[in-house]
């Protein structure tokens, strides 16, 4: 066997250019394939993180009727849930919200508005609303009816800090409430659609206008420290509060959960297709290597080299080529993904489109380590499969006939 390994090693250097072409194609194919995978994976992770941190959180609790119709009347009392969540160490942050949908208008513009009544401190901890402010103050103590609006909406309303805007919404009893709010700050969001739609007011102000008690809320959103706890806590809450609807981010945003689920599959499909393309080149090259050495192989068999050895020699030659190209490709890919994850790739050209997708224009490629191992395994599996045909072909040679041909 040792001899076979040695011969095979020497054989691949007999035609350097040809071997180099195969090694290069494996190397580049793997490198580029992994990098593209890391890019898509990173993009998806970023989108998920951004959606969870900025918009949906890990868990949301509503009155079960709210899921069908988001009506003002469908509130629930936050007291019990609040007490339950407060003493749970698994929670990173949670906040209660009161919501109303209606219309915002100034002298210059009027448009649809989602009015979100928040508890300033809790909201700052949960969705980092305070850090998103680009101008103004975050719910100052003084002053009536403060509101925070998105930059995009501010532009449309032509509002400045201190401007008054009118919010119209229904109180749930068939009355339209029209109330003046004072713009105290502008926030920025990755998505300009969100900036236009969402307005943040003090929860107590909104509750008063809607005629609700301070404990009556529409939503509690919670962020957990560990992803693994999400479903456990969801079940615990559901058991404790059967009347409420407890939803995890997977139910709140099925498309996000779906993208998350199929991501790994997608990555393996990408790599698989590249491997398939690679294997065509490998089969062809090795087949040629066998056929052009017909005479030599016949001679080897005539002088007594067993068929098993001939077969394994061809297999080992192919394996060597993969051994040179594969790991090199994976190492380069690992390095470039690592570099990319530090500096990020700026896709400013697509920034608006990405923003509507919920992500920043700088993408940080990332890949789970298991994927590298999976790819390595796949490379060697593919190489061995591709080598079988040429190696079998070598076995079928008739030693006497091959010696006779020129």
């Amino acid at each position, binding site marked *: 066997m040792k001899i076979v390994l040695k011969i095979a090693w020497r054989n691949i250097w007999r035609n350097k250019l040809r071997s180099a*072409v195969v090694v290069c194609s494996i190397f580049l*194919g793997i490198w580029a394939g992994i990098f593209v995978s890391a890019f898509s994976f990173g993009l998806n992770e970023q989108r998920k993180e951004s959606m969870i941190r900025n918009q949906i959180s890990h868990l949301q609790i509503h009155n079960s009727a709210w899921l069908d119709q988001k*009506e003002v009347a469908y509130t629930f009392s936050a007291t019990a849930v609040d007490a339950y969540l407060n003493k749970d160490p698994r929670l990173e942050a949670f906040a209660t919200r009161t919501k109303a949908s209606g219309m915002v208008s100034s*002298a*210059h513009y009027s448009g649809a508005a989602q009015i979100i009544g928040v508890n300033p401190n809790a909201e700052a901890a949960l969705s980092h609303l305070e850090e998103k402010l680009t101008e103004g103050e975050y719910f100052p103590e003084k002053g009536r009816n403060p509101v925070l609006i998105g930059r995009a909406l501010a532009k449309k309303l032509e509002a400045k800090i201190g401007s008054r805007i009118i919010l119209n919404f*229904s109180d749930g009893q068939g009355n339209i409430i029209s109330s003046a709010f004072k713009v105290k700050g502008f926030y920025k969001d990755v998505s300009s659609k969100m900036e236009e739609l969402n307005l943040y007011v003090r929860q107590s102000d909104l509750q008063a206008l809607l005629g609700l008690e301070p404990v009556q809320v529409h939503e509690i959103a919670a962020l957990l420290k560990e992803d693994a706890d999400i479903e456990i806590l969801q079940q615990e809450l559901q058991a404790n509060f059967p009347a409420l609807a407890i939803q995890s981010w997977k139910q709140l945003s099925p498309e996000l959960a779906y993208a998350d689920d199929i991501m790994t599959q997608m990555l393996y499909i990408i790599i698989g297709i*590249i491997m398939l393309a690679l294997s065509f080149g490998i089969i*062809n090259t090795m087949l040629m290597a066998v056929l052009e050495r017909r005479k030599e192989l016949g001679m080897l068999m005539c002088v007594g080299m067993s068929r098993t050895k001939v077969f394994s020699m061809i297999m080992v030659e192919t394996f060597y080529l993969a051994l040179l190209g594969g790991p090199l490709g994976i190492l380069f890919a690992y390095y470039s993904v690592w570099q990319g994850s530090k500096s990020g790739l700026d896709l400013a*050209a697509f920034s608006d*489109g990405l923003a509507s997708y919920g992500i920043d224009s700088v993408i940080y490629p990332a890949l789970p380590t298991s994927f590298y191992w999976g790819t390595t395994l796949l490379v060697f599996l593919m190489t061995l499969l591709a080598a079988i045909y040429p190696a079998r072909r070598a076995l079928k040679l008739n030693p006497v006939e091959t010696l006779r041909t020129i």
Partner: protein
Amino acid sequence: MLIKIAWRNIWRNKRRSLITMASVAFALFFALIMRSMQLGTYDQAYASVINATTGYLQIQAPGYWEKQSLEKSILQSDSLQAKLLQNAQVRALLPRLESFGLLASAESETRPGFLRGIDQELEFEYFKLHEKIVAGSFPTPEQSAVVLAEKLAENLALKVGDSLVIIGQGYQGMSANGKFLISGIADLKNPEANKSTVYLKLTDLQELTGAYQRLSALVVVPENKNDLSALKQSLQSQLDAQDYAVLIWRDMMPELIQAMEADSAGGLAMLFILYLVIGFGVFGTILMLTSERMREFGILISLGMSRFQLALTTFMETSFLGLLGVLSGSLLALPINWYYHVNPIQLGDGMDQMMEDYGMEPIIPFSLDPSIWLNNGGAILLICLILSFYAVASIYRLQPVKAMRQ
């Protein structure tokens, strides 16, 4: 003669030629399926959004699109329309007035809605609006009634024959409140529009908002959809830039286009890697083909065949190889693309939600645009041609005596 030789040369080593062709065919097959799916999705998305929202081209007041406020409206003018209609590229001009209001009904809460005042006859003729009706009908000329989008009607719990209350803000800060009979319900084939649109007669909306004789936009129906920027320029030259701006749908929906372009760029990156890998495979074949025939080339040159003839033969041989691969790849992909063009894939699970977020129907129709075939087939053929210059170069470098001795 040379062509004949080249053709026969391909079949001298059938197996190798077949594997090379198969690799080319595989790459093209995959490329065609993927691009056909991607581009088909984009076309569908654009068409759905364009038809349900802006149309291909609009003439607006400068700054209207950023603000979308009645204050930035234009005056309805028959002389202007007559002048623009003289442009041979303009098929029709559709006046529209768009505004925003809160919608209320007896049965449910208020909801924000998008009011669109239209000239019914023109919208029927050019946008086939009447075909979208699922219940009732558009109002008769004497009637003052509205048509609701399907999802909106469902959310408001309204049927044909009920009445709709609109509370909004009109021109120059006037209040715009009114009550209308619902004469019909329409499915606009665009999820976003289906959730919010109310169609009113142009005159009704002008009266409601107090924007008498005013329009948000003139929607231009072009003779030819493919050269919109030329039409934009010729229209702009006919109009005073101070009072009118001409916008293409691309100007009005940069987010949608960028999201599509980012997606498309991802697909192109994948194709690039695939072509790279296949290119190496083809190069390997050409390399072998040249090196195994060195002796033959030497003899032919010694016998008096010109190097040019020989190079041309080899060049043709590799081109045929590429061409055969391209042809078989295209033939393989054609039935699949055709099938999914006629029977688009219906999306389920979470993907449908994602598409709806973009305002598209959750189906993936494949595109049969011949340019997909031309571009990808052409790209692969070009790669084969460039690579075959290796064979050409080695024929010109060849020293006959040395080659024959090998």
